């Protein structure tokens, strides 16, 4: 296409990239993946004695119990170890991990939800660590500055919008390649027909990168 010989389609896209905590650039961060700290871990086959060693060494309140492939399956805190014989297998005393979050969740959305220290795992459930987030009221004047934090990125909503726009453009122009001006005029009319004001349509087109005609 257009003389390119090596073109690849990353089919799982941005959602997949971010769900694995890989770095991104942009305005919506920071993401939990940016501030994940390591946690003390033990394997399910290890014993209470090993968990005690981990806790004393790491200074954590709890040990995360993981399977051989890194899947987080539970936690054991210091209280649960009280009175347990050293040779008790951790599988017998762990409590299941309540819930985990993806590294692509914004810090702001967790802060607005009251903060906390959720375990962060990738999309396959492999433990990345823990992200400690202060409640939003501790960040007044910081988290909201210059941002419209409405929680994590609503990728699905945007995808639906984008798919509808692309389908409409294809239906209208067919194989013909529209000029930037034609494209803008078409999209503007479509937005106004859908009930948006002229000003709102202008703003949306600007957001989409479809600027004013020459």
């Amino acid at each position, binding site marked *: *296409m257009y003389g390119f010989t090596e073109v*690849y*389609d990353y089919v799982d896209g941005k959602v997949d*990239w971010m769900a694995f905590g*890989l770095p991104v650039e942009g305005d919506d961060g920071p993401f939990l993946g940016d501030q994940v700290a390591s946690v003390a871990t033990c394997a399910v086959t290890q014993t209470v004695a090993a968990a005690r060693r981990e806790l004393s060494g790491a200074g954590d309140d709890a040990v995360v119990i993981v399977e051989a492939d890194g899947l987080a399956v539970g936690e054991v805190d210091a209280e649960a170890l009280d009175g347990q014989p050293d040779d008790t297998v951790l599988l017998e005393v762990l409590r299941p991990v309540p819930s985990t979050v993806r590294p692509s969740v914004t810090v702001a959305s967790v802060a607005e939800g009251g903060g906390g220290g959720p375990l962060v795992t990738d999309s396959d459930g492999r433990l990345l660590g823990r992200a400690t987030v202060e409640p939003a009221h501790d960040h007044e004047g910081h988290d909201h500055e210059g941002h419209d934090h409405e929680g994590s990125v609503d990728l699905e909503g945007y995808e639906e919008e984008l798919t509808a726009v692309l389908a409409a453009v294809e239906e209208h122009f067919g194989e013909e390649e529209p000029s930037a001006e034609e494209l803008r005029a078409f999209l503007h009319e479509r937005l106004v027909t859908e009930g948006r004001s002229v000003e709102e349509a202008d703003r949306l087109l600007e957001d989409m990168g*479809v600027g004013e005609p020459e």
Partner: protein
Amino acid sequence: MFESIGRDRVRQLLDGGAQVVEVLERRQYCLAHLPGAVHLPAWELTRARADELDRDRPVVVYCFDNL
């Protein structure tokens, strides 16, 4: 012809100097994009815009997800 690839292959290609292109709308690109990604919306994939890319380097294109 496009070749469908996964995350690990993308990382390899990026390490090797590939160009990466996000085809979503500007607002989405501004919120978060892959490191070094160029913004080239799907509806602007014209020959003129394609000239902004280096034809001698691999190009990785991505959207939201696989739906």
